[in-house]
């Protein structure tokens, strides 16, 4: 049973739409080929029941639609998602749409065996080598203005002038907003993540946040594909206030052209000076240079 690389499938199991029914059907096809299937309903009430399977295999999550219930479930339980597919996207490739009826259409049923094979061969989403796991300790430089203390990391981060950062490790980056955004927006109470799989050009919106005072977009400093969003942040957006640069990360992307993106970005030292000026200037503007 406990062979490594064995697939463990967590389907969305949505009962009310065709996409959900397809994800369930695909999971069953894969189970015939030897994969373990996790029932998302049972898993929710008795997660221990699947502990053995999850420890030994590689987790494939099949979401029906963009709501991503299966992914969310996995994230909530801290599961490492190795592979991922979304039925709506698979359908889109075939120029098909998900139907409203939960009964799978005939032309779609015919596609499923081929899809099952494809999913078996699906590549892992997280890079396994290269240590791109964003675990290194970050140290900060600080400057004070009035009672406010502003923090900027010492290294490893790149900023745009929209006060958003990219923490770059190898081919990947995590994105978020700076301490300045956190302090001027005040208490953040919502984080709306972008879709996993979304292609970002530089300066595209990578999700948005809303505070008690205002709302703003996270404007991506880099181009790439969204590979993960911080599920914890959806639950606890105040992490952006308490730890804007590490625990408050919003989005993880696979970089597509960092070498050229970087020419337009500030490094940590550059942003430190930029922010210092910005805070001062803003104050003068507000109070007329007292």
């Amino acid at each position: 049973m406990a062979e490594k690389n064995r697939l463990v499938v967590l389907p969305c199991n949505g009962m009310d739409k065709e996409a959900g029914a397809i994800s369930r059907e695909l999971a069953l096809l894969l189970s015939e080929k030897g994969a373990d299937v996790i029932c998302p309903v049972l898993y929710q009430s008795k997660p221990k029941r699947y502990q053995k399977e999850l420890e030994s295999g590689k987790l494939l999550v099949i979401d029906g639609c963009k709501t991503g219930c299966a992914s969310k479930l996995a994230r909530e339980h801290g599961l490492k998602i190795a592979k991922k597919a979304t039925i709506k996207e698979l359908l889109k490739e075939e120029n098909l749409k998900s139907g409203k009826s939960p009964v799978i259409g005939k032309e779609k049923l015919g596609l499923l065996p081929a899809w099952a094979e494809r999913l078996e061969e699906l590549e892992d989403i997280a890079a396994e080598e290269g240590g791109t796991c964003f675990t290194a300790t970050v140290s900060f430089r600080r400057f004070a203005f009035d009672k406010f203390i502003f923090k900027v990391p010492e290294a490893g981060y790149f900023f745009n002038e929209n006060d958003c950062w990219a923490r770059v490790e190898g081919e990947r980056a995590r994105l978020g907003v700076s301490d300045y955004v956190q302090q001027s927006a005040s208490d953040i109470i919502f984080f709306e993540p972008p879709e996993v799989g979304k292609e970002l050009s530089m300066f595209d919106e990578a999700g948005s946040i809303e505070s008690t005072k205002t709302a703003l977009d996270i404007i991506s400093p880099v181009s790439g594909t969204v590979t993960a969003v911080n599920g914890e942040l959806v639950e606890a957006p105040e992490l952006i206030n308490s730890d804007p640069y590490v625990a408050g990360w919003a989005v993880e992307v696979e970089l597509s052209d960092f070498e050229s993106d970087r020419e337009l970005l500030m490094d940590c030292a550059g942003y430190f000076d930029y922010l210092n000026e910005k805070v001062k200037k803003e104050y003068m503007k507000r109070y007329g240079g007292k």
Partner: protein
Amino acid sequence: MRFRSRGWLKVSEETFMGVPRGKIPWCPAIDYEKCDYCMECDEFCPHGAFERREGEEKRLVVAHPENCVVFCRVCARTCGPDALSFPDKTETLELIKRLREDEQDG
């Protein structure tokens, strides 16, 4: 969604990415055919890009385009009748890149 403008966020940078802000044509355009003057965008914008004009035909104008934060489009989301539009982002970025080169050359 209603937000009040707060001074703390009010900032207009004289330059953006090393380019004089005035040279970057980034700000919302109001489609007056659609605008119903609900003023939600003005309520929202913490940077003061809009201005209300009592008694005039166009009761809301983009009076301070230079206050608009380049690449920010949040106000458009507050607009029910979808009357706000922005320049193309890719074109704007290309323009900024060209202007940066000019700045460096000149």
